[in-house]
């Protein structure tokens, strides 16, 4: 039997459900906007994003919702060659310098 995908947990025991509305952080809104733009323009498909999230394996559980979907999007864009690791690292370093000079 192949390893079950991490989203396939129907029927399993779990802990209590956090029902508090924590609102959205600024970066989470930005992440939603980016993901929605890329799916509505069909640059990536929702099914691909779900698959990329499942491909995170055990990491799927360690990440929060927005971290998971953002990391899935990053991996998918790298996989499709829409951006390169070098481009991404360069941009991340640039943004980091703005906050941590």
């Amino acid at each position: 039997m192949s390893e079950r995908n991490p989203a396939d947990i129907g029927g399993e025991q779990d802990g209590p459900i956090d029902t508090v509305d924590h609102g959205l952080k600024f970066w989470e809104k930005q992440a939603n906007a980016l993901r929605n733009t890329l799916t509505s323009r069909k640059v990536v498909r929702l099914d691909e994003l779900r698959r990329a999230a499942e491909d995170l394996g055990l990491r799927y559980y360690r990440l929060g919702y927005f971290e998971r979907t953002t990391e899935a999007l990053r991996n998918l864009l790298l996989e499709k060659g829409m951006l390169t690791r070098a481009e991404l690292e360069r941009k991340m370093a640039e943004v980091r310098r703005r906050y941590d000079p």
Partner: protein
Amino acid sequence: MTPSAYTPAPRRRFNVGERVRVKVANPPGHRRTPSYIRGKEGAIERVCGCFPNPEELAYGFDGEPKRVLYRVRFKQQDVWSGYDALAEDFVELEIYEHWLDPA
């Protein structure tokens, strides 16, 4: 019963009311049929229509040929061992045709 369909699905294998069993398979990859329902028997509740196959879309393919999607109704008793609430409790799942066999 009249078959309902959100999009036409003229060449379908099943009709409303027919008994089906979900395939037992554990293929790797993006699969849209949860493990807990595999091998369970239920009845076609409605024909949802014909859609690109999400198990192919997930890898960047076009999802052709389209697959017929059904809403299938299962008795909770048939899904969970030791389910001791009402016999009329149901769970409904939307399942693609290639995951279904006649029961």
